[in-house]
């Protein structure tokens, strides 16, 4: 068990590996990708609490199809990027981050799963639900921020 903060704590799991500094307006690119992502979320109804229940009750293939085909397309893309050493728009080598195993992936994963089935949402869909007019979900989002904060506060005392 590791109870000391390692430098890993200061590394983000979805990091920005771009070496060139981006202007403030360059961030609009990510906003646009987010918009398209949000539209897909709503149109495929995966932001629906009902669809999540359907998935966990094994009563529809829909969610498994969405997640499964997303992973397959992602895998092929990552393979192609690595195989042909495809560079980013600004000519940099794409960085990948090996994930280290720790027990948090088990305990945290189970805890997230419990919350997923209650709220009918993972972090992404939470934002799309709010945008779709379920304004009350702001409470869930704030609670998720509080949960993240509490994790940061208790991190040294938790098994990893």
């Amino acid at each position, binding site marked *: 068990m590791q109870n000391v903060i390692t430098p890993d704590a200061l590394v983000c799991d979805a990091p920005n590996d771009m070496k060139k500094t981006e202007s403030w307006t360059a961030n609009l690119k990510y906003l646009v990708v987010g918009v398209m992502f949000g539209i897909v979320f709503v149109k495929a109804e995966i932001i629906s609490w009902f669809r999540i229940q359907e998935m966990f009750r094994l009563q529809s293939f829909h969610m498994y199809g969405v997640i499964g085909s997303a992973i397959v397309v992602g895998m092929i893309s990552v393979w192609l990027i690595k195989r042909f050493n495809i560079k980013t728009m600004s000519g940099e080598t794409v960085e990948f981050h090996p994930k280290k195993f*720790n027990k948090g992936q088990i305990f945290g*994963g189970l805890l*997230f799963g419990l919350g997923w*089935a209650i709220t009918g949402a993972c972090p992404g869909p939470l934002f799309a639900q709010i945008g779709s007019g379920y304004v009350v979900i702001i409470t869930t989002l704030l609670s998720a921020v509080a949960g993240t904060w509490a994790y*940061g506060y208790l991190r040294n005392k938790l098994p990893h």
Partner: protein
Amino acid sequence: MEFIDLIRKPWPWYVAGPLIGLTVPTLLLIGNKSFGISSSLRHICAACMPANIPFFQYNWKKEIWNLFFVVGVLMGGFLATTFLENPDSFQLSSATIADLKALGIRDFSGLMPADLFDAANLFTLKGLVFFVLGGFMVGFGTRWAGGCTSGHAIMGLSNLQWPSLVATCCFMVGGFAMTHLILPHLMKLF
């Protein structure tokens, strides 16, 4: 059929899934960014209330793209609901409807059950469970696991990371446990 009508209908999994998968290479190629959404919650903590906690002491401004991304997701949700709304009613599997009716859900009209996610429930026990407790577990759990469905299930598995497979399996186990073992008891409380 008009193109716009086709878009307004719910999208099948084989259209939506690949589009979500394409987010991975898009983010990598437009700016060397690894896909992951729960990090945005950490950046919000780091930006708003770091409270001298080492976990929140990092240069969140470098990661601000992630916050632009989630604001985009929110706007996308708004645009899709406002301009591309499904003209037909929501089609849920009849088995799920039967199961949820048995649990006390009555309203099946929207994407979210009005019986649970209504502002009127905000300050009730129901609200405490479905908004506060549920949200807290999502936030605490994803950070402890080091990612959520996007960071682990999609980005992690795309990059063949076995710890992400462990995390994804645990996400599913937790969800099955809540749905089949705990939710029936929770619903009896209200």
